[in-house]
């Protein structure tokens, strides 16, 4: 039953815990960690500098705008963060392209358990996870990427196109004004704000909970800063990955030295700051929603 080529419909629940596996395993590459850190910082920067405009009629909005140095300085911060974020996105797409070229196969990138592209297995995982939530089944285990991680990932892709595209339109209205009808700018400012609410609301609540704040990981999972996950996580949560690596005898290749103190400290300080800012932002949005 426990083979890597397990059929899609079968429940990947583990009944016996593995023992004897210790140490740390690779989770993210150095490039991915740097990109995540930059994405995180620019995201918080864009959120804090953009929210005063989006929620301009709230009492805290002028205060925050003044703290950032006025709306013009806030706009500058917003554009600098946006430019860096676009850079992060382009770099990521670039590394994916390189990876695809190196392996001479786009297929591995878009299909199979290593791919970020949603698989039929993800639908099954959602079903089993909800069954477990409701106490109707065992807790499912996952491969390298869970369905909620894939959702977060594609949400950024979607957001980059929607927010990034509309943002560029609003940034360079005269250039785009020559090409596009005026109503496109109405749509651009609408979706820029709405998608921003979606992204900020999602990242600072759902993503924070899934990745960091849920009781098993509380207060945060430093994997994305250190690039390592403990063997325990691989064996218990990502047991399908563990089985697959063992079956292909590539488990040893995934082993990694324990995270350095510096990388963990970086995770705690920078990640913790982002978490705190995110929670503050959510409180401001909730305050807005309640007081309106």
């Amino acid at each position, binding site marked *: 039953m426990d083979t890597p080529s397990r059929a899609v419909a079968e429940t990947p629940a583990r009944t016996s815990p593995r023992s004897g596996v210790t140490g740390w395993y690779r989770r993210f590459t150095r490039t991915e960690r740097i990109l995540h850190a930059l994405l995180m910082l620019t995201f918080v920067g864009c959120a804090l500098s953009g929210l005063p405009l989006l929620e301009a009629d709230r009492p805290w909005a002028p205060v925050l705008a003044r703290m950032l140095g006025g709306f013009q300085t806030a706009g500058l911060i917003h554009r600098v963060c946006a430019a860096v974020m676009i850079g992060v996105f382009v770099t990521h797409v670039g590394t994916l392209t390189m990876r695809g070229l190196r392996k001479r196969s786009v297929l591995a990138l878009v299909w199979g358990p290593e791919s970020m592209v949603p698989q039929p297995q993800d639908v099954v995982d959602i079903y089993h996870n909800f069954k477990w*939530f409701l106490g109707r089944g065992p807790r499912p285990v996952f491969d390298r990427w869970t369905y909620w991680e894939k*959702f977060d990932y594609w949400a950024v892709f979607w957001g980059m196109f929607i927010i990034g595209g509309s943002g560029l339109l609003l940034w360079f209205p005269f250039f785009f*004004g020559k090409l596009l*009808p*005026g*109503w496109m700018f109405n749509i651009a400012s609408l979706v820029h704000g709405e998608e921003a609410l979606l992204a900020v609301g999602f990242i600072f609540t759902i993503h924070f*909970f899934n990745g960091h704040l849920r009781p098993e990981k509380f207060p945060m999972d430093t994997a994305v800063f250190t690039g390592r996950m403990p063997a325990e996580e691989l064996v218990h949560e990502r047991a399908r990955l563990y089985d697959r690596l063992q079956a292909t005898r590539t488990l040893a290749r995934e082993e990694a030295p324990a995270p350095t103190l510096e990388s963990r400290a970086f995770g705690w300080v920078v990640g913790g700051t982002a978490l705190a800012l995110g929670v503050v932002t959510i409180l401001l949005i909730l305050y807005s929603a309640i007081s309106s």
Partner: protein
Amino acid sequence: MALRRGTATARLTHVNAIFEASLHSWPNPRRDISVKGSAMLRSSFLRIATVLLLSAASTCWAKPAPVASPATSPNDTCLACHGASDAKDSAGKSIAVSADAFAQSIHAQSGIACTSCHADVSVDKLPHGEKLKPVACANCHDKQVKEYSATVHGMARRGGNSVAATCTDCHGKHDIRPSKDPASRTNHANLEATCSSCHGNAALVAQAKLPGGNIGSEFHDSIHGRALAGAAQSAAPTCTNCHGTHNILPVGEEASRVNRAHVPETCGTCHGAVLAKFNSGQHGKMRQAGNTAAPVCTDCHSAHEIQRHESPKFQTAVIGQCGGCHADYLTTYRDTFHGQVTALGYSQVATCASCHGAHEILPASNPASTVSAENRVKTCQTCHANASAKFVSWDPHASREDKTRNPIYFYAAKFMEWLLIGVFAFFGLHTLFWFARLVIDKVRR
């Protein structure tokens, strides 16, 4: 001769006795005077005594009335007691009259006697009774008092309001000076302070519920109040320029100069060019057509807190005034970058007036309007120098509710709404269930 001298001496003794008696029958204040202002009393007493003695010694045997001499006047007789700065009546209330201030007053200068106003006092019968009748200014100023009685102040007085201003509240009492005199309470430069003694007195405003609240402090910081404190004082309007003097009427009365029906003309007495512009604009035309809801100057500028139109505070606040009538347009404006930045209190981006104009606002259907199809590019170019016809086809009042005006915008908004609802509903439940499961498992274990 001996008899005469004796009689004269007896007479003087008699007068002395009267005065001594009066010191007791006219109790506290006099006694105070006798102690504190004894020097003055002594000199007054000697003067009266001398006059009496002289009159007695010459002809007037039976009548001890003081006779005007070149050196004295009936007013001096009054000031003999009232001239003391600490003169008080039996209740301890000051009855002092400043001789200097009175001497400078228009009444003294015109040779009016104290008893002309205080007609129930006679210098023949001193000391006079303690309770005097109120002075009737109307005896001389008949026309002004008649006018006053029809004003908001006069009507309030008649209605039993004991704090509403009467003649003396604005003009003073013994120190009344002509309005042209820079020291007059009713001089142009001093009227703000005079009116503010009630309308800028926070305690009185609250106690008497004066209409308009603390107008004094509002006016003082207004563009008019500041101008009054500056070099252009004589040209700057003070309270009476808008409200009138002996004809101040309640704002609700149509005859009032500050009633909605007359506000533009009242302001227009100084701002004639603006009035002409206003009259040719949509708001002015509505008003001429008899629409009483049409805005007048004070609706946008306020009455007493008028600010410079360049001030960010005014420019961002007046948007709310436009929105008071044009609520839908305010909502859609707030959805734009312009509306968001001004909501934060910054005025560097377009406000209503930037595109629509201020006094000369015309509907977009009018080709002369700043927002007409013909003028739109030019209007946008005042800020966006590169604005093109395509650029200005952006809708500054796109409504996410209005399917006919902006169908694509409408559906885009609907799509985004449902996207947000969908994502947060699914992952909200996902997170909630997950959290609940982890807690339940932990509790069971």
